[in-house]
């Protein structure tokens, strides 16, 4: 996500053309021309082209942590000097020292670096329950040429998502119910075969995309007695064709976000769908959970982006007969698929909208005297329908947290706080350091328009006491997006557990909801014996015409608690109750999974739930897709 500001107009256009051309040439090498390429599904085709190099190997544990977030080489730690540090080479923050992290960490959580809670270093394979295999099923798979494995590490890896309780258990070396077998279909037809066999042998299938679920969606139901097969979509990851006339792309559903974007970029395009988990989450996962991307203001959420979906169900394949941009053919069948969370079938191929790469990107940030003013500004921006590609408003705690991640030296990290202090005395007079909050912005489009747009937004901000606080701060904010997920593992090394959760809520309730939920978290923690006030913060991450998406972070120091997980779960539960009582939704984009199932009836009414159930009953009467999410 490099800023293009410093490239002159002409250079940029030229560069883009070159990329487009290069993209086409690469495609042509492999097959058809005319901007449309197709590839047959050949199981053992070596993936030669660098553009196709998948970033997800079958043995994911080779590059990713088995009991934490992300790549094995990247993690936060406190070095011998007690300084915070981020390891690896992948991110802009990699290899940097974070001098203020320790103080912030200790002050915020009341922890001490002396008190460590290290994770079990390696998976104890003998603790993994032996697989319950249906031999003829495995045999027939082999005959059909579908890759499968019951290697314990692989099974454990696919037994969870990234909820706190899942990771916490792994760190303690506790292994629950894990899938009995992992299969790797290579294409749509493989999936058809697998589903057929699963029906034949009454085997339970659980689709597995990127594994980034945060709703317990990937947990094997304890009550499941059949053989459980994890259907790993990672090898179905090809872009099958790009249609430049209609600006669509047809992709296999196992592709992960960063690969899709990178490959499209090479052709001069993008989908613009960038959920924070895009390094690991998959297209099929997005469809199955109704995902939302950071830049939805320009590109839309997943439901706005898909044009056509193909899904394999026990009843057969479901898809529409054409790619018309809108239809009136009864309830949209895509809406049965989107958000079905793997309960109906496997999404195998998706046609998505694409856009030419934006010619110009510009970050920005605004400081507000307080959160309320910030929310009012975002509301006004939404009213005028002039939201930039992304606009996010952080509360004061998150603003301070952002500072804790400031590296020692770096050009893009020009000292904000120092600048601010000066600012504070002069222009910021009246801004309370413990009240002010920051919005980060990302504009995209052609240069003229971006600059115009930028001015419009800053003018609105000024009306709410907002002051422009520079591009760097904005860029830094977005860059942190990807590394923040690594921080939880650091916390867990020192008695700190936490999680994020989200909701959507009408505009007029945003402030009340934020205040009440944060307060509820603080109170519930106190009542449940948490010794130190928790970190309870929020940000408004998306704006809509009629409301906003709010994202909460919540973490606390669990020293002295007999059952920290239980405390954590109760508090999260109460926080959700509070959200619902304040007019917030059950979920804006994380989905329901098993974690939030108990509220589904309340959320969609008994009839609504019945509708969904009857779809499930028709499509999958034997509950082959038995992950028991949602319903």
């Amino acid at each position, binding site marked *: 996500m490099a800023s293009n500001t410093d490239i002159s107009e002409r250079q940029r256009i030229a560069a883009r053309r070159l990329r487009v051309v290069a993209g086409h040439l690469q495609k042509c090498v492999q097959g058809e021309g005319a901007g449309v390429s197709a590839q047959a599904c050949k199981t053992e085709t070596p993936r030669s082209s660098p553009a196709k190099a998948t970033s997800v190997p079958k043995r994911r544990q080779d590059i990713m942590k088995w009991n934490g977030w992300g790549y094995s080489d990247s993690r936060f730690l406190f070095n011998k000097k007690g300084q915070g540090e981020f390891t690896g080479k992948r991110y802009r923050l990699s290899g940097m020292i974070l001098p203020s992290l320790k103080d912030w960490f200790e002050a915020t959580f009341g922890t001490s670096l002396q008190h460590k809670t290290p994770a079990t270093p390696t998976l104890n394979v003998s603790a993994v329950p032996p697989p319950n295999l249906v031999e003829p099923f495995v045999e027939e798979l082999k005959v059909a040429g579908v890759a499968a494995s019951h290697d314990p590490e692989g099974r454990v890896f696919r037994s969870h998502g990234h909820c706190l309780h899942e990771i916490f258990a792994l760190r303690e070396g506790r292994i629950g119910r894990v899938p009995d077998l992992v299969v790797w279909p290579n294409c749509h037809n493989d999936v058809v075969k697998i589903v057929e066999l699963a029906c034949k042998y009454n085997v339970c299938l659980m689709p597995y995309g990127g594994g980034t679920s945060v709703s317990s969606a990937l947990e094997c139901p304890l009550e499941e007695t059949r053989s459980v097969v994890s259907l790993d979509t990672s090898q179905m990851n090809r872009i099958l064709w790009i249609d430049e006339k209609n600006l669509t792309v047809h992709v296999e559903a196992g592709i992960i976000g960063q690969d899709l974007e990178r490959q499209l970029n090479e052709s001069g395009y993008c989908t613009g769908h960038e959920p924070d988990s895009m390094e690991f989450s998959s297209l099929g996962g997005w469809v199955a959970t109704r995902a939302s991307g950071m830049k939805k203001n320009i590109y839309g959420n997943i439901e706005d982006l898909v044009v056509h979906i193909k899904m394999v169900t026990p009843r057969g394949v479901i898809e529409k007969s054409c790619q018309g941009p809108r239809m009136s053919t009864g309830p949209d069948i895509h809406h049965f698929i989107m958000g079905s969370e793997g309960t109906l079938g496997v999404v195998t191929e998706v046609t998505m909208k694409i856009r030419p790469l934006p010619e110009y990107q510009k970050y920005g940030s605004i400081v507000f005297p307080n959160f309320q003013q910030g929310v009012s500004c975002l509301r006004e921006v939404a009213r005028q329908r002039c939201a930039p590609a992304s606009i996010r408003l952080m509360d004061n705690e998150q603003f301070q947290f952002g500072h804790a991640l400031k590296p020692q030296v770096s050009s893009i990290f020009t000292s904000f706080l120092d600048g601010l202090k000066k600012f504070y005395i002069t222009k910021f007079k009246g801004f309370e350091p413990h009240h002010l909050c920051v919005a980060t912005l990302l504009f995209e489009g052609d240069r003229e328009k971006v600059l115009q747009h930028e001015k419009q937004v800053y003018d609105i901000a000024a009306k709410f006491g907002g002051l422009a606080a520079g591009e760097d701060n904005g860029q830094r904010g977005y860059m942190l997006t990807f590394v923040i997920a690594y921080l939880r593992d650091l916390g867990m090394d020192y008695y700190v557990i936490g999680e994020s959760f989200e909701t959507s809520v009408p505009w007029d*309730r945003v402030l009340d909801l934020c*205040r009440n939920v944060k307060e509820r978290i603080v109170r519930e923690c106190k009542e449940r014996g948490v010794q130190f006030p928790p970190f309870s913060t929020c940000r408004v991450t998306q704006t809509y015409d009629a409301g906003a998406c709010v994202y909460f972070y919540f973490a606390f120091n669990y020293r002295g608690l007999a059952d920290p997980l239980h405390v954590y779960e109760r508090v999260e539960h109460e926080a959700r109750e509070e959200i619902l*009582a*304040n*007019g917030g939704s059950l979920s804006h984009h994380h989905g329901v999974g098993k974690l939030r199932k108990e509220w589904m009836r309340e959320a969609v009414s008994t009839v609504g739930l019945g509708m969904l159930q009857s779809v499930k009953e028709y499509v999958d009467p034997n509950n082959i897709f038995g992950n028991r999410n949602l319903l």
Partner: protein
Amino acid sequence: CSGSPPSTMKRPVRKKKKNRLLSSRAEPASFVDILEERRRGSDISHALRAFSPPPGCGAPPPSPSALNKMVLESQHLRYVVLEVRDTPGQEEAAALLDEMSQNLQVTFIRLLGFALSKIFTRLFRRIQVNEDGLARLQQATQEHPVILMPNHRSYVDFLVLSYIMFTYDLSIPVIAAGIPLMGMSLIGEIFRRSGAFFIRRAIGSDKLYWAVLSEYVRTIVRTGFAPVEFYVEGLRSRTLKSLTPKMGMMHMVLEPFLKGEVYDLSLVPVSISYDRVLEESLLAHELLGVPKPRETTRGLLKARRVLEQDYGSMHVYFGNPVSVRELAKGRIGRGQYNLVPRDLPGRPSEESQAFASAAAHRVVRLQERGTVLSPWSLTALLVLQRPDGTRWDLLARDTLWLRGIALQLGARLDWPADLPDLEVMSSSMALHRSVVRCEEGCVWLVEEAGPEPVTQEEGVFRRASAVLMCASYRNQALHVFTRPAMVAVAMGTVPGHSQEDIYRHFCFLRDLFANEFVFVPGCGPQDFEEGCSGLQQCGAVSATDHELKPTEEERDTIVFLSAILEPFIETYQVVFRILCDERLQVFTEKSFVPAVRADAMKLLISGNPVTLRRDTEGYLPPTPTCCKLQCPNIYFRQSHCRIHPGSCSPTPLCGPQVATSSPI
């Protein structure tokens, strides 16, 4: 609650079991006299002291005009203005708001502080406040918006409260006051500047007025810059007995919580009790139908006579803040507003109404529990049972006995330990020379002096006024005894000792007296348990699995407790009798009370004893009937013309129709 017996009764009420409510109410409070320092120090420097209350939970206080602007520009008012009137509505709303709004100014608080220091030191020997309660209040103001909910016994109630807040450096509350106070030109303005806002008495169905008022109150609660103070009883209690709460203001203050606009609210019950109430003589007259003088500044000045007298001490007990969030837990779904704009005008849902009502009743109960009783209140109870005079030594002996019971039942008594009991009792009684006299070892009620000769009516009137004054002080203590007394009465009307039967009769009484005493709706079982364990505490009953039996040793207690309720029961009987009289067919509440009064007068004069039928069924019908009558205030009783209303039907509501005016 009349149906099945409470589940708590399934298990035996064990003798040793401590009732949580009782024990919490008996916890000792240490009071501090705030006048002591005033007597020693300078009133001027008190008035000019550095006054810097800690910031509340909300934003800094908006100026009164900024507050009014917020109200006028609110979406809620815009909706209502659209709904009721067209454009002039906006101006009208502004005018209403001008009439209503407070104009709190610290200078005036100081002025008032100065004046009140002068006045209070003259009126009262002591103003006792519990500092621990103030500390909790201070804590509460920093966390959430606070609603101060004092009981209302005297005009000076709210002055005293603001004075205390000023003295203790707490935010001066914004106070809901009645419009009549505003009528007093100078005083009205002073009150306004001391933080009072004014509410019309009869709002009726004036939608715009309701909207302005409720938005005004909600805005203050929401912004949380100062505590909101209002009398949940709605009126000054003329009988000194707690009144059942009025719901209008209660809904307004609760709404911001129910709509999620604030995280929580703290309801702080404040119990104000006077050894002697300033308006003492007015009370009896008002109850007897003599119109109350209009509140005018002049009238107030004339009341200077009041200043010459000794009113003893007053106690102000700040109760534990009650978290509305805690109260609401599991009782009300806050999601009820999820599908409509929260500003949309609308009646509170049934669920909210029930919740608000329970909360309001609960607060009044807490006020009762915080009340500090003077020894005289106990003596008055006994005097009323012997209205023809009694020997002082017997009275003193019985007062001591009653003190024991009251303490068992968890009453807070102001009974100095360092003085001999006899002195305590006699000096407490001496304060009430205008009501009761003790001469030559005998104690009797004092009848008002007036021109002789007296007509029969005047005679009854004078007598009644003495009895009523005495009854007012008894009423202060009544709440301590109501529940055990109701159990005692119920036990007397049940053949056998089955808890279940007793509970059923208890419930009948509870329904009957729903407007007479304060019962939290839906808490029948708890009330019964409180009554039972109170009796057990006094050793008056023994409880087994399913039975409740009076003990031999303490029969007197049972008899005494039942006797406390007798005047009330008899009053209801008289009223029911009148209601059953065919002559009365349709009448308004307004004409009803005088009619009852006149009838009662006739009965008293004729001295015609009407026998009370007390057969097995007695006045307790097998199927309890809920009587929703506003009880008229006539429960005096005289020995020389004792009313024994008898043969009236116990189910009065089938009789004439009562056209009640709509309650506020």
